[in-house]
């Protein structure tokens, strides 16, 4: 196998540098967020990396007001499922937008949120 495998580690390393990477099935064209061994649509194993633009719209969101330990100082904060232009979705923290302005269908754009060693998927104004 000479294919380039996108691991969780490499997905978030790329994301840290501002690049979102999906994987596309070379057999049926299914697009997915890595990592994944077999294609859920055709069961083949022919993934290739594909850059994602990071542009999308909010398909659902919530404002977390009671946060778990580790995020306590951050509440209230918004979390959204964003449907990307390429068709896959991604969960992320919504930043740089007033919480009361959030609506389903609102356009947003990916931005990495870097917290020490950790990279978190974020979305800001389109």
């Amino acid at each position, binding site marked *: 196998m000479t294919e380039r495998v996108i691991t969780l580690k490499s997905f978030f390393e790329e994301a840290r540098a501002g690049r979102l990477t999906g994987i596309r099935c070379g057999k049926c064209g299914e697009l997915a967020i890595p990592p994944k061994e077999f294609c859920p649509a055709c069961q083949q194993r022919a993934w290739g990396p594909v850059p994602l633009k990071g542009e999308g719209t909010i398909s659902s969101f919530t404002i*977390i007001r009671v946060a778990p330990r580790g*995020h306590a100082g951050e509440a209230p904060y918004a979390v959204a499922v964003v449907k990307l232009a390429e068709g896959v979705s991604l969960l*992320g923290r919504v930043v740089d937008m007033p919480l009361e302005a959030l609506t389903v269908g609102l356009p947003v754009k990916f931005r990495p949120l870097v917290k020490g060693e950790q990279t978190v998927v974020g979305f800001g104004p389109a």
Partner: protein
Amino acid sequence: MRRVAVIGVGLTRFGKHERNSVELFAEAARDAITDAEISPSAIQALYYGNVTGGEGERQLHTSPLAASLLGLTNIPTTRFENACATSHVAFRHAVMEVAAGISDVVLVGGGERVLHIPTDHATEYFGFCSDASYEQPVGLTFPGVFALIARAHMEKYGTTEEQMAHVAVKNHRHGVHNPKAQFRKEITLETVLRSAYVADPLKLFDCCPFTDGGAAVVLASEEVARRHKRSIWVLGSAAASDTMFMHEKRDLSRITATERAALGAYRQAGKGPQDVDVVELHDCFTIAEIVATEGLGFFEPGMGGIAAEKGWTSVGGKIPVNPSGGLKSKGHPIGATGAAQICEIVTQLRGEAGPRQVEGARVGLTHTLGGNTATVLVSLFGRD
């Protein structure tokens, strides 16, 4: 495969306890064994469910510990963990062991204790049931998961916060009659609607509480069960899973694992939603009950909110849901919840539920959901 029956059930009081989760299970198991009128030595296997013992109690290897506290030795023991569906998963495996003829009598259940730790710690531990790379770092909580589902359901079907509030009011009204319930107090729509947002659009009173408690069930083969007058048959028990990732759910307004598990259980039982007289389902949040009543086939997609508002899911309504008070009022000790729901349905089908009895109930259903809607179990029960 052999027919399998429940011959004994046991439940601790739900609420705050000083004893640890294995002790709570052992108390429930003692009562289930007594209820089954068997000798403890008749038990040939133990299936135990617990979720947060490792984090909250610094205790792993809990299934032989449970057997040790019960004074049972030399039987195989197994611990299960599938988030909030844990002991219903354990139950299905126990059913398969008896159905396959490996054992004639099996003890199954769960225990959980979380009220001794701070709420933000408990919220974090429960959060471990979502993905550690894509979800936990974003700060997604379980109220948050169901808030995303609620928002999608509201957008698609026009479901309202008031309709969700009706679920909480109804389950608290039911729970008043359950001596084991954590909150035996009626609440009003205003109380729910005026409570603070936890994860918009879900408010404090849309959420079930943190709970300590234990639940246990004794399963037996048909030959053993025939010697017991109060046996209740397991008509079907099915499991389904869905992707763990919120970003992979195709339609956030639906819980497809519920639909698939229900289909499996109905098929095994040769029954459909129209045959069910009483239901205990997973109302961890009010929206979860609304979506579940749709996924289990009681109402068309989008009608769950209206059904709650019109009282169709009350005891005395079209399809009584959560006569025990549900997770909302009875409480939700996550490792014990699936078994506790089964205890209630067995009690209902025996006709022993007292003031919360659903009159003439012959077929009952339990539904338990785990984590990011990624594990769902549905079981059907019937009396002779």
